[in-house]
């Protein structure tokens, strides 16, 4: 506890001393591999103490962005600052203030969970005793207290991820990078990691999270940057992004596919038809009024419907809408 209080104080001091507005900032990052640009003018701005989601299809440049921001990779052009320090000029300062949890559980399989944390603690320049205490603290916090002596190769997937997360938190870093932290986990493992991330943010950590799961971004992220082909294509809160693809829609599933044209006519000129799912949908600006009108019209014209509902766009639709055009 005292450690995290100190960490929070420390972070407040940064903010006041340097007038920092964003904890993570990137401007025009470029990273080329031969003719292919993994990052092509990538911009990012993450305010303090928020969870920021980085969304994008495979190969969009999410991991490359994280690797540049964590000083693992040198950009070809552009600048980035993390916790107030330039990632290329002050790599050492940045590394003292970040935690990285990558796509693979980067752990020594042959060692126990405790030995892993102690090793990473020593390499983070904690004194032996402090490293030992911190390892114990983190094991308890992530519910690994009684398995700390077991070799990591005997851990379950969820346990590994939690230990990996713990390893990223040894110095109570103000900034944490999570690169697809739940890929390959079962629903229970995913829920465990989500709970851990929420607890961190409650403690005041700034988190940059890349993910392929839109539900994950929806659940965890305050704001989301959608990346495609190495560039930011949209930025906003999940709600704002959903609004960009349009507001609520009324959706009718007809019983008999032959009724589709008639149902579409009822919904007006903006109606969209999907014969595969026997579905017709149209904007519903007046929500309940639109819904009751549609139900009434359906009954009046004798069209049998299996389902009639008002639906809000999902993040999946936002994602497809934003990344389909460009691809």
């Amino acid at each position, binding site marked *: 506890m005292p450690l995290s209080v100190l960490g929070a104080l420390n972070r407040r001091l940064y903010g006041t001393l340097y007038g920092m507005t964003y904890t993570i900032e990137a401007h025009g990052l470029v990273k080329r591999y031969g003719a292919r640009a993994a990052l092509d003018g990538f911009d990012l701005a993450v305010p303090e103490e928020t969870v920021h989601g980085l969304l994008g299809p495979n190969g969009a440049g999410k991991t490359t962005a994280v*690797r540049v921001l*964590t*000083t*693992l*990779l*040198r950009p070809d052009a552009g600048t980035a600052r993390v916790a107030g320090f330039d990632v290329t000029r002050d790599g*050492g300062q940045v*590394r*003292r203030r*970040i*935690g*990285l949890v*990558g*796509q*693979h*559980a*980067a*752990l*020594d*399989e*042959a*060692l*126990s969970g405790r*030995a892993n944390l102690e*090793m*990473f603690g*020593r*390499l*983070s*320049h904690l004194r032996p005793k402090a490293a030992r205490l911190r390892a114990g603290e983190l094991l308890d916090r992530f519910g690994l207290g009684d398995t700390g002596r077991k*070799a990591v190769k005997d851990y379950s997937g969820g346990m590994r991820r939690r230990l990996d997360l713990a*390893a990223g938190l040894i*110095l109570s870093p103000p900034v944490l990078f999570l690169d697809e932290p739940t890929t390959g986990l079962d629903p229970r493992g995913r829920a465990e990691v989500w709970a851990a991330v929420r607890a961190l943010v409650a403690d005041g950590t700034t988190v940059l999270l890349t993910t392929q799961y839109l539900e994950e971004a929806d659940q965890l992220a305050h704001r989301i940057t959608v990346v495609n082909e190495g560039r930011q294509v949209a930025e906003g809160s999940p709600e704002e992004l959903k609004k960009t693809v349009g507001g609520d829609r009324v959706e009718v599933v007809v019983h008999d596919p032959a009724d589709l044209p008639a149902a579409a006519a009822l919904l007006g000129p903006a109606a969209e038809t999907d014969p595969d799912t026997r579905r017709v949908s149209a904007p519903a600006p007046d929500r309940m009024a639109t819904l009751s009108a549609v139900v009434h019209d359906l009954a009046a014209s004798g069209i049998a419907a299996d389902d009639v509902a008002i639906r809000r766009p999902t993040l999946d639709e936002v994602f497809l809408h934003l990344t389909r055009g460009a691809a």
Partner: protein
Amino acid sequence: MNRLTWALADGWTVTRREVTHWTANPGQLVAGLLFPVMVLLLFAYLLGGGIAVPGGDYREFLMPGMFAMTMVFGLEGTFTAIANDVTKGVTDRFRSLPMASSAVVSGRAAADMLTTVLSLTVLIVSGLAVGWSARNGFGDALAAVGLLLWLRFALLWAGIWLGLKIRNPEAVMALQILVWPIGFLSNAITSPATMPGWLGVIADWNPLSSTAAAARELFGNPGWANDTWAAAHALELALAWPLVITAIFAPLSVRAYRNLSR
């Protein structure tokens, strides 16, 4: 603490990781230590009967060759460990920590040298048990051990470079197999003079052969009459070869490590 002491402390932490592996997995350590002993017994008792060393005992001839061969086979351990850390993301985690970046390499190097000393000790004791001995006194024996470790040290750099370059597990397996011909294409087990001409020349110039021949001289063990230039200058070559290998692979390793951030 200043930069240098941190670099040493961090290197030691990485080295200690290997020592912890030994205690966590003693079976693997014992198997690794007994493997060269098994090869030794194989040649000393199963095949050695059919090999006659002019003017000497085959086991006396064999031991320095086994020592040198063990140095070369140590290469496998180095590149396998490095490649594993790179693919598992452990190297990236190290690189994202505020530790001295040199420690990733220096820690590995120290760990491998420690393993080598352990392995060499086991092999020397086994040698003594099968009737081998160092006949030129303690000083020369120590010099021979020094030359053996000097070869292993040079091969560390080759191993680090290979591990950083070849990352996928299949390639690592293939490379492990390729180390074998390097070990056998030498004077470790038999004389290059008994091989077909061009193979004999390669075996004669194999750095392993120079170190083995130099160790035979220093231990006072019988060699095989061989009048090639390389055989006549074994001591000089045993000093020079590792220097050449280090001069090539140390800069390459440093560059490959830096290129991880490209």
